[in-house]
C-alpha cells in the first residue's frame, strides 16, 4: 500500500501480493484475512443468538447449532483474533525497533499463507459435508466419534494454520532479538514490542503441545491408533491436558498484544509517559510465565484430586497480581494526564473496567469448589467473552482507529468512530452481562435451546438484542473504512500529534525500505524525545546514507502452503479414515500435495537467494517521487 505509488494493473497487484515479503504488505493481508474470518465468525454468533432469542426456537437445528458453536470459537481464536494481532505486530514491530524488515521475510510470507489456506480449508467444511461439531476444545471423547469429516477438517486445518503461527512466532522473536536499531536496548523497547516478544515466546512453547495433540487425534481418526480409545487402554484425558497446555497460554497469546496496544494508546492520549514502564515489562513476563502453570483450572471437574486442584487454583489466582499491576499502571498513566478523548482512547477507557470485570469472574472460577457450580454454565461464557471481547476485541478496534493512518495514510472518521464505540460497547455489555446471571440460574453453555418459564426468557432476549447492536457497531466501522477509502485525505506522519514511538517518525507514505538510514535511539519514546528537542526530522541517524540490502520477492511460500492445502484434501478422504467416505483420488492427491510442498522446500534450499541492493541514487529518486523534494518529509 504505502510502499508503492506507481499505478499497476490488477494482475500485477495480485502477483505483487502473492510474492511479497514486505512486512507492511503482509500486515495488510493479515488485516484483510483476519477481518474476513472475523466477519464469518461474527455472523455465526448472530445466528446462534437468534436461535436462543426465544425458548424452544427452531431457527437452526441442534446439529447446525453445534457446527456454528464450534466454528465460532475456533475461527474467532485461531483465524480472527490471532491474524488481526499479527497484522499489527507485522506492521508496527519492525518500525518500532528501527528495522527494515523482519528477520525472515520469506518465512513471514510463508506464515501468512499457511494461516490463510489452513483457515480456508477449515471453512470449506461447510460445503463439504458439514463443519466440525465437537466444540472448539474438541474433547477426544466427543470428537473421536463425531461422524462425517467435520473433525478431520478441524484437525488438518488447525495443523496447517498452526504451523503458520509457529513460524511467525519464531520470526518475531528473532526480529526483536537481532534487528533492533542501535540504542534500542531491551528496556527502551515500546510496550507493544515487549508484549509481542513475550507472546511469541508463548507461541513457541504453547503451540507444540497442540500440534502433538492434533497428531494423536489425527492418528486415532485416520490410522486407527488407540490413544483415546479406552477399550484399547487409551485415555481421553491426555487430549484435555495437551489441549489446555496449549489452550491456556493461547489466552495470553491473544491478550498480551492487546495489553501492548493499549499501552501505546493510553500514554499517547494522556500525553504522559507510561507509568511504571519497568513494572509493566516485569508484569508482562510474569504473566507469560504463569500462563503455563495454570492449565488444569479448565479441568477442575475432571477429578484430578484436591491437591492438584488446590495447586492450580492458587497459581491461577497469582496471575491476578501482575495483571492488577498493569491495570493500576494504566490508571496512573491516565491520572493527572492531559487527556484527549479520541476514538482509540475511548476504547482504552472502556477496556479497563470491562476487562477488570472479566478478570474478577476469572478469580471466582479459580476457586475450585465454586467452579464445580460454575463449570459449563453460561457464567463461563460471560467470563471469557468479557475477557476476549472486553480485552482483545476492544483492543483490536481501538488500534484499528489508532494505527489506520500508519497502514493506509488515511484517518478514519472520528465522529463515526465514537458512535461505533458507543454502539459496540453498549451492545457488548448488554449481550454478556446478563449471561452471568443466566449461568448462576443454571443455564448450561452450548445448549441449542431451552424450555420456557425458567426465568431465562427475558435475559436471553436482551442478550440477543445486544448481539445485534454489536453487529451494527461492526457494520458502522466497515462503513467508516469505505468512506475513508473514498474521501480520505493523506494523513501524513504523526497525525495524532502526540505519538511517542519510532513508527510515527517515518515519513508517509512509508518507503518499502522503511528507514533510509538506520535511526539512533536515544531513550524510551525516541520520537517524543526528538520532538521535545525540536528535531524537525524526528530521528537522528546511526549511519550515513548508503546502499540498502533488501530481500527478494518469492512465490515459493505460496506454493509451499498450497501443497499442504492440496495434501489436506487427500488426507481427509484417505481410505483409512473413520468417516467411511473414501475417494479413489485421495492418495494421489495427498502425494501430489506433499511433493509440491517438499519440492518447493528443496527448491528453496538449493537456489541461492542473496537479496539485492537499493542504491543511493534509487533511494533519492524514490523519495523525490514520494515527497516531492529530496530527502525531506515535511
Amino acid at each position, binding site marked *: 500500500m504505502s510502499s508503492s505509488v506507481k499505478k499497476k494493473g490488477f494482475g500485477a497487484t495480485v502477483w505483487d501480493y502473492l510474492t511479497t515479503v514486505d512486512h507492511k504488505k503482509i500486515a495488510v493481508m493479515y488485516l484483510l484475512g483476519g477481518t474476513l474470518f472475523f466477519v464469518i465468525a461474527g455472523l455465526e454468533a448472530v445466528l446462534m443468538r437468534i436461535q436462543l432469542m426465544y425458548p424452544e426456537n427452531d431457527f437452526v437445528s441442534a446439529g447446525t447449532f453445534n457446527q456454528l458453536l464450534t466454528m465460532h470459537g475456533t475461527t474467532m481464536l485461531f483465524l480472527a483474533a490471532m491474524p488481526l494481532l499479527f497484522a499489527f505486530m507485522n506492521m508496527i514491530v519492525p518500525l518500532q525497533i528501527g528495522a527494515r524488515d523482519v*528477520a*525472515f521475510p520469506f518465512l513471514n510470507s510463508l506464515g501468512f499463507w499457511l494461516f490463510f489456506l489452513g483457515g480456508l480449508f477449515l471453512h470449506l467444511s461447510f460445503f463439504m459435508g458439514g463443519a466440525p461439531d465437537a466444540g472448539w476444545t474438541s474433547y477426544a471423547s466427543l470428537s473421536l466419534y463425531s461422524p462425517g469429516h467435520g473433525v478431520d477438517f478441524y484437525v488438518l486445518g488447525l495443523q496447517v494454520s498452526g504451523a503458520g503461527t*509457529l513460524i511467525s512466532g*519464531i*520470526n518475531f*522473536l*528473532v526480529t526483536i*532479538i*537481532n*534487528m533492533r536499531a542501535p540504542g534500542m536496548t531491551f528496556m527502551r523497547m515500546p510496550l507493544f514490542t515487549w508484549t509481542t516478544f513475550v507472546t511469541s515466546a508463548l507461541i*513457541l*512453547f504453547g*503451540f*507444540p*503441545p497442540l*500440534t*502433538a*495433540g492434533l*497428531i*494423536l487425534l489425527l*492418528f*486415532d481418526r485416520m*490410522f*486407527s*491408533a*488407540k*490413544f483415546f*480409545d479406552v*477399550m*484399547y*487402554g*487409551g*485415555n481421553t484425558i*491426555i487430549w484435555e*491436558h*495437551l489441549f489446555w*497446555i496449549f489452550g491456556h497460554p493461547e489466552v495470553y497469546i491473544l491478550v498480551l498484544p492487546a495489553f501492548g496496544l493499549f499501552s501505546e494508546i493510553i500514554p499517547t492520549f494522556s500525553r504522559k509517559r507510561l507509568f511504571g514502564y519497568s513494572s509493566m515489562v516485569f508484569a508482562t513476563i510474569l504473566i507469560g510465565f504463569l500462563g503455563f502453570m495454570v492449565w488444569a483450572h479448565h479441568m477442575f471437574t475432571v477429578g484430578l484430586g484436591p491437591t492438584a486442584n488446590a495447586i492450580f487454583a492458587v497459581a491461577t489466582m497469582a496471575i491476578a497480581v501482575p495483571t492488577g499491576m498493569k491495570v493500576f499502571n494504566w490508571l496512573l498513566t491516565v491520572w493527572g494526564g492531559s487527556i484527549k478523548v479520541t476514538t482509540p482512547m475511548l476504547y482504552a477507557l472502556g477496556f479497563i473496567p470491562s476487562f477488570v470485570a472479566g478478570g474478577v469472574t476469572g478469580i471466582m472460577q479459580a476457586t475450585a469448589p465454586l467452579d464445580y457450580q460454575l463449570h459449563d454454565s453460561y457464567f463461563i461464557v460471560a467470563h471469557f467473552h468479557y475477557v476476549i471481547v472486553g480485552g482483545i476485541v476492544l483492543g483490536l478496534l481501538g488500534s484499528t482507529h489508532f494505527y489506520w493512518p500508519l497502514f493506509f495514510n488515511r484517518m478514519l472518521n472520528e465522529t463515526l468512530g465514537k458512535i461505533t464505540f458507543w454502539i459496540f460497547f453498549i451492545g457488548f455489555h448488554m449481550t454478556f452481562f446478563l449471561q452471568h446471571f443466566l449461568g448462576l440460574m443454571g443455564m448450561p453453555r452450548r445448549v441449542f435451546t431451552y424450555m420456557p418459564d425458567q426465568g431465562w426468557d427475558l435475559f436471553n432476549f436482551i442478550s440477543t438484542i445486544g448481539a445485534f447492536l454489536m453487529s451494527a457497531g461492526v457494520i458502522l466501522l466497515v462503513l467508516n473504512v469505505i468512506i475513508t477509502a473514498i474521501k480520505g485525505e493523506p494523513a501524513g506522519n504523526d497525525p495524532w500529534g502526540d505519538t511517542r514511538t519510532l513508527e510515527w517518525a517515518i515519513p508517509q507514505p512509508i518507503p518499502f525500505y522503511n528507514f533510509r538510514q538506520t535511526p539512533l535511539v536515544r531513550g524510551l519514546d525516541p520520537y517524543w524525545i526528538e520532538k521535545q528537542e525540536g528535531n524537525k526530522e524526528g530521528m537522528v541517524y546511526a549511519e550515513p546514507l548508503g546502499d540498502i540490502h533488501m530481500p527478494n520477492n518469492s512465490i515459493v511460500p505460496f506454493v509451499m502452503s498450497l501443497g499442504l492445502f492440496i495434501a489436506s484434501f487427500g488426507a481427509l478422504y484417505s481410505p483409512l479414515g473413520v468417516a467411511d467416505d473414501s475417494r479413489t483420488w485421495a492418495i494421489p492427491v495427498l502425494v501430489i500435495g506433499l511433493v509440491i510442498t517438499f519440492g518447493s522446500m*528443496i527448491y528453496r*534450499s*538449493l537456489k*541461492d537467494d*542473496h537479496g539485492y541492493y537499493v542504491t543511493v541514487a534509487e533511494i533519492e529518486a524514490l523519495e523525490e517521487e514520494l515527497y516531492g523534494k529530496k530527502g525531506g518529509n515535511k
Partner: protein
Amino acid sequence: MDYNTKFTPQTWPEHAEQATLEGKNKFVGFWLFLACEIVLFASLFATYLALKNKGPAGMEFTTQELYELPLAFGMTMILLTSSLTSVYAMYHMKNYNFKGVQLWMFITVLLGASFLALEVYEFNHYVGLGFTFGSSAFASAFYTLVGTHGFHVSVGLVWITALILRNAKRGLSLYNAPKYFVASLYWHFIDVVWVFIFTVVYLMGVVG
C-alpha cells in the same frame, strides 16, 4: 563482509556461521525452533509414559518382553558416533577445510542411514510379532514417539545430502556456512532426543 568475499584459512572468520546478519538470524532462529521441538517431543514422551503397557484386556506385549536392548544399544552407539562425526565436520569448517567438511558430513549421513535401517528392521520385527500401530494404546504411543524421531532423522538425511550435493563445487562461503552449522545443530538435537528415548523407552522399559 558479504557473500562474494573470497577467503583463505587465515582470513576466514572465527564464527563464520554468525558473520552476516542473515547467519546470526538463522543461528538464533534455529535455536528457538529446537526449543519448540523439545516441547513437541516432551508432549509425546508424556503421552508414551501415560500409555506405557496399556492395552486391551489380555494384551500379550509389555516393554519387558518386547524390547531388545542389544539392538537399541547398537542404534544408540551409531547415532552418538554420527553426532561426533558432525562435530568433526564443524571443526573443519572452522579451519576453512571444505573437503573435510564434506567428507565428515558424508560419513554422518552414512551412519544416520544405517541407524534408520536398523529402526525400520526393528519396527518390521515388532509388526511381525503382531505389535501393530493400532493394536493397543501402548503400541500407538510407542510408534508415534519413536517414529517421530525416525521421521526427524529422515528429514535430516535428505537435508544434509542436499547440502553436500548442492555445495560440492562451490566451496565454503559466508552464505552456506550457517546452513552447514544449523544442519549440524539439528543433527545433535536428534541425537539428544534419541538419548532420552533410549533411557525412557528402552532402559526404563526393560529394567525399570
